[in-house]
């Protein structure tokens, strides 16, 4: 490998403004969009008082009513805004969407909700905790009538803990999907660089390719220099995106950052290989190749949940094979398993599959590139 050729090629790549925009800036813009769109769900400070209705069972319910009224988070935000009514009215309110839920009774309070969102989950968790703690709460109230005002009950109920727990649960399941998919998409985006390298070295694809092909440098040597330059330029974009997500918008990537970088690196090579493969073997106009690449990368990102997280689960259950050959999905899956599991088994499986894909694409591309004269140029 010649350092000089590598450096010049790298210069070429980073001076291509359009490629730099799509590779460096675009993912960061997308990450920012996700961040602003989900910012509300992201932080506990943003907890809003939830409107609910309570259907009382008469005197017995009074102390439970008091507990509900007094419930607040440690920041002093009241948890519930309660409307008292009968069950028919409560039902109507719920239907209209004026309240998030209604509760009936006190000894064994029953919860009625319409959806299954974050707020419903918080109310449910509250009631679950109350049911578990009701004996304790009743005992405390009996011995100390001022317990509610003194905040003792809230302490016992530990609202913050489960509000946070509920939100934390939501975070990886729904929100991390977006960021992982984005990072994975950025890895596979290397395909565009792979395609470009092939175009620039194949005599039948460009005048520059013809010129280097008649020179006295062995073609594979030049290709190696160029693909390493492309990898360098592309991996730089991944690092930038990672730092932006990790330090600026504080996405939680777990603790295994080295593993994360490793799978990104494999992903970058898979992308380069895919682009090179399409460049060599799709015998169509440049525009067609680019369109195929865009469909493949964006489609892969879509199927791995970048636009809608549910798609990922649907594909995994209905078309498992597809999720095993979709490089974007293998990448997101590797990242999840780093986050969720304590063992690395699933991470290794995914990374290995991804590596196999990279190698297959790479070998096929090289077979095509080794050919040196053409029927038509």
């Amino acid at each position, binding site marked *: 490998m*010649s350092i*000089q*050729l590598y450096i*010049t090629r790298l*210069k*070429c*790549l980073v*001076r*291509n403004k359009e490629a730099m925009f799509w590779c460096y800036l675009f993912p960061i813009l997308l990450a920012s969009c996700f961040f602003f769109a989900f910012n509300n769900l992201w932080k506990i400070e943003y907890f809003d008082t939830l409107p609910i209705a309570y259907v009382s069972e008469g005197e017995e319910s009074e102390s439970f009513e008091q507990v509900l009224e007094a419930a607040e988070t440690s920041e002093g935000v009241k948890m519930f805004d309660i409307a008292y009514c009968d069950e028919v009215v409560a039902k109507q309110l719920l239907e209209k969407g004026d309240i998030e839920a209604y509760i009936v009774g006190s000894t064994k309070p029953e919860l009625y909700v319409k959806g299954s969102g974050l707020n419903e989950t918080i109310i449910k968790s509250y009631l679950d905790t109350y049911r578990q703690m009701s004996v304790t709460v009743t005992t405390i109230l009996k011995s100390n009538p001022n317990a509610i005002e003194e905040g003792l009950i809230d302490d016992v109920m530990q609202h913050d803990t489960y509000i946070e727990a509920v939100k934390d649960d939501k975070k990886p399941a729904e929100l991390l999907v977006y960021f992982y998919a984005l990072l994975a998409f950025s890895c596979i985006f290397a395909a565009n660089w792979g395609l470009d390298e092939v175009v620039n070295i194949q*005599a039948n694809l*460009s*005048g*520059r390719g*013809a*010129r*280097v*092909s*008649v*020179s*006295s*440098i*062995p073609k594979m040597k*030049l290709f190696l220099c160029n693909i390493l330059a492309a990898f360098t330029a592309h991996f730089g974009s991944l690092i930038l995106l990672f730092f932006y997500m990790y330090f600026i918008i504080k996405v939680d990537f777990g603790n295994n950052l080295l593993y994360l970088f490793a799978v990104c690196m494999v992903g970058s090579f898979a992308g380069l290989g895919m682009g090179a493969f399409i460049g060599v073997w799709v015998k169509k106009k440049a525009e067609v190749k680019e369109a195929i690449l865009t469909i493949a990368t964006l489609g892969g990102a879509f199927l791995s949940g970048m636009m809608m997280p549910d798609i990922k689960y649907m594909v995994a259950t209905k078309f498992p094979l597809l999720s095993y050959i979709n490089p974007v999905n293998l990448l997101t899956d590797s990242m999840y398993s780093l986050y969720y599991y304590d063992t690395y088994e699933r991470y290794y499986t995914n990374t290995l599959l991804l590596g196999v894909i990279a190698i297959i694409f790479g070998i096929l591309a090289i077979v095509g590139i080794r050919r*040196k*004269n*053409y*029927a*038509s*140029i």
Partner: protein
Amino acid sequence: MVVKVDGLVKRYDKLVALDYLDLQVEEGEIFGLLGPNGSGKTTAINCILSLLKYDKGNIEIFGKPMGPNAYHIKKDIGIIMQNVAVFDELTVYENISYFCSLYIKDREEVKRLTQEAIEFVSLEEFKKFYPKKLSGGLLRRLNIACGIVHKPKLIILDEPTVAVDPQSRNKILEGIKKLNEEGATIIYTSHYMEEVEQICSNIAIIDKGRVIAQGTKDDLKAMISIGEKISMEVFRIEEEALEELRRLPNIYSVEHRENLLEIKSKKGKNNLVSVLEFMQRMNINFGKVITEVPTLNDVFLEITGKELRD
């Protein structure tokens, strides 16, 4: 012999682009490959360079068989393609230096050669320019610099003056002559006969993938029957007088169109004098008289029956 092409046949599907093409290029000459658009010049060059597969034939360069892996041959060839092929993201200097480093490892040597090439095409002022900012003529000169920077022994230029202003064109032609004087063998393709006449010492005229005539320009002109072209301004001339004129010895063809009498005569002495005497004898008034020796276009016209330029 620097380049030897024997019986080269190249088909694109059904279309026969090269039809048993033979070429011999001797060391030190400027070899012109002259032919109209679509006659197979570029195809021939790409076959010679082993970029194209061909159906039949033999190609030797520097006396050795040429092939895609013949790096020892390739290192001594410089190629300037028909279409400008440079990197838009690299400056003039960087482009030339990059193409040089494809051939030469030593960095100091690359620097020196790059500088020389820039001076050779007079792009000193534009060293730091990106190709997008260069005019057509300057871009062509950059393209040439990229092809010759490694001091090749054989330089192949495929229509290097297409879409170039006259000033740049002259610079390019002078440059080619200079490269030749410095020792390089040149293959020059063009469909402009003036250029080929101006710089080439040996010329092959090709049409439909075949060499139809080859030799120095004098050889080629000697091949055809026209020796001289006489044009005179004549406003009125009778058909009988034209007939009589045609019957004069040595006259090849006579045509009268739009006040212009065009007489092509065979080789021989005193053709003009006999025509002028005839005019006087017949009492035909005439204005301006121009005589010309035949051009390569006449050669092409006589052999193929069509004009070189369409």
